[in-house]
């Protein structure tokens, strides 16, 4: 029986977040909070491994109380238990402080039931770093494996697993000791529609909620803003491009105009590197 812990985060949907043009700040109320899309694949993979080998899937997140919603989404996918660590002391954490806090929570979960595998999404869509997963692995002193796009096998008795790590032009087959931490690619699985029993369970589900006090011995200087070596010194809107020339006329006239523009820059079509298939030389 495997015990798998998936680390997740609730994030604003950055795809539809709006900027306040006056203050150049993000209008967070414009974007719904969602389960980080990469983490959904991490949870799905954990659920699949549970189906294959038997066991239990716990999810853990750090965030404000509304993050319970993201945990419920994981229950919908098929997770068994959820843990939310929430405390003012965690606020303002960068990736180093975040990996510390989550590690404390994972250690506590592990005292109740030993952990065989930790799974994270590749990165979050708000921080975009991918640094927290490997950070947790280092703190727990277990092997971190990033860019994982397949779990070939897990052998809990032998304490070993085999996974594929994605490379730019292929993949590598890695044997690792267990426990280990995997950061998984989106392509590792497809998330099916939730089953009705899972949805019903999710709707009612109340996760375990811990504050700093519940986490045992914690070095408070390593939490939140205080425990974060990096600070955001300045935030500004990206340069607004000035806009291009809009071609006028009928479709045919526009196409002809574009074609002549391109033909006047014919040198751009000369190849310097590899291309995919044949074509204009």
């Amino acid at each position, binding site marked *: 029986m495997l015990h798998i812990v998936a680390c997740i985060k609730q994030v604003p949907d950055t795809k539809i977040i709006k*900027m306040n043009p006056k203050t*150049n700040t993000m209008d967070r109320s414009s974007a719904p909070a969602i389960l980080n899309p990469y983490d959904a694949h991490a949870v799905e993979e954990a659920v699949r491994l549970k189906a294959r080998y038997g066991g239990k899937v716990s999810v853990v997140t750090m965030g404000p109380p509304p993050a319970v919603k993201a945990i419920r989404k994981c229950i919908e996918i098929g997770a068994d238990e959820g843990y939310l660590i929430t405390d003012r002391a965690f606020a303002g954490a960068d990736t180093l402080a975040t990996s510390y806090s989550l590690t404390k929570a994972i250690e506590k979960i592990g005292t109740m039931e030993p952990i065989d595998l930790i799974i994270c999404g590749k990165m979050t869509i708000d921080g975009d*770093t991918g640094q927290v997963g490997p950070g947790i692995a280092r703190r727990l002193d277990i092997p971190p494996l990033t860019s994982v796009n397949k779990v070939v096998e897990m052998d809990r008795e032998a304490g070993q697993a085999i996974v594929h790590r994605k490379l730019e032009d292929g993949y590598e087959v890695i044997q690792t000791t267990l426990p280990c931490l995997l950061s998984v690619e989106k392509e590792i699985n497809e998330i099916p529609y939730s089953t009705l029993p899972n949805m019903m369970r999710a709707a009612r589900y109340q996760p375990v909620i811990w504050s700093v006090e519940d986490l045992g011995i914690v070095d408070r200087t390593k939490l939140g803003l205080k425990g974060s070596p990096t600070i955001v010194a300045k935030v500004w809107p990206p340069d607004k491009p*000035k806009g*291009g020339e809009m071609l006028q006329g009928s479709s045919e006239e526009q*196409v002809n105009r574009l074609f002549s523009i391109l033909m006047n820059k014919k040198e751009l079509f000369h190849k310097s590197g590899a291309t*995919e298939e044949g*074509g204009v030389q």
Partner: protein
Amino acid sequence: MNIEEYRGIWVFLEHKDGAIVPVSLELLGAGRRLADKRGVPLSGILIGDGVKGLAAEAIAYGAETVYVYDDPIFHHYRTESYMRAVIACVEKYKPEIFLYGATSTGKDLASAVATDLATGLTADTTMLDVDAETGLLEASRPAFGGNIMATILCKKDRPQMATVRPKVVKALERDPERTGEVIEEPVELREEDIRTKVLDIVRHTVKKVRLDEADIIVAGGKGLGGRVGFEMIGEFAKRIGASVGGSRDAVEAGWIEHSRQVGQTGVTVTPKIYFAIGISGAIQHLVGMQNSGLIIAINKDSNAAIFQACHYGIVGDAFEIVPMLTEAFDQALREEVKHG
């Protein structure tokens, strides 16, 4: 921590197939500029099996010192072995700034190293500067899906680390006359201390062209409506020798594979020509293609943000425009064949 003890700029020299990868050479260029501004040396750290010869290459691109860890234990990149070499070297020589390419290897390694050294790491940096007086690295990056740019500082811990995206800074001209020092470091690792093994490396037999190396890209978005739209732009791309890319929406809809996603959570591309077809131009897409040489946008919606980011725009139905454009190229090709 006495940050005064930390001095010099470092670049992690990633290599593949017997050559230093382009982003590491670019970082030597950026590192040179930072080092000169600070009046400190620029060094590279090179780890691998039989890689010592590459040190001269790093010097030709601007490094003054190259620390080399050359041992069979480093034959394949593995987080644990490489990380230990890097940490040993940092503890020995104490650099103030340490840059890595934001590749999968660079990001993997830097994340682990930063945790053990308990120092700050900025991910996916696109702009780098240093304050000559304070020595603070100003690492700027897009955040929140590219909706904002943020400058990140690491004031109290050293080294200040950052992963830097490929193609955002320039390499120096290669100059074999440059001189520098190669220092071979002792390797005190044993295979049995490393908990992972690379059993096999499988390369795709069909050589996939990497989007970030393509000269011409034809990219499609939600406006293409489905796979049929992608077949259409694929046809156009084939005609002009381009690679096909897609927006996040198109990838999430499953019309094109994730490896071809252009944007903040995909690939950053700088082709000579970029066609954005049926792409609205969400900021997270723009950050991934805005440095392209010539940007051409085709979209039904005249208010689409992509028109602010393009050089030439056509407001119209892609299903009408693209086949016409394909035909125009076809005709030109036929003419060319005819006239030799």
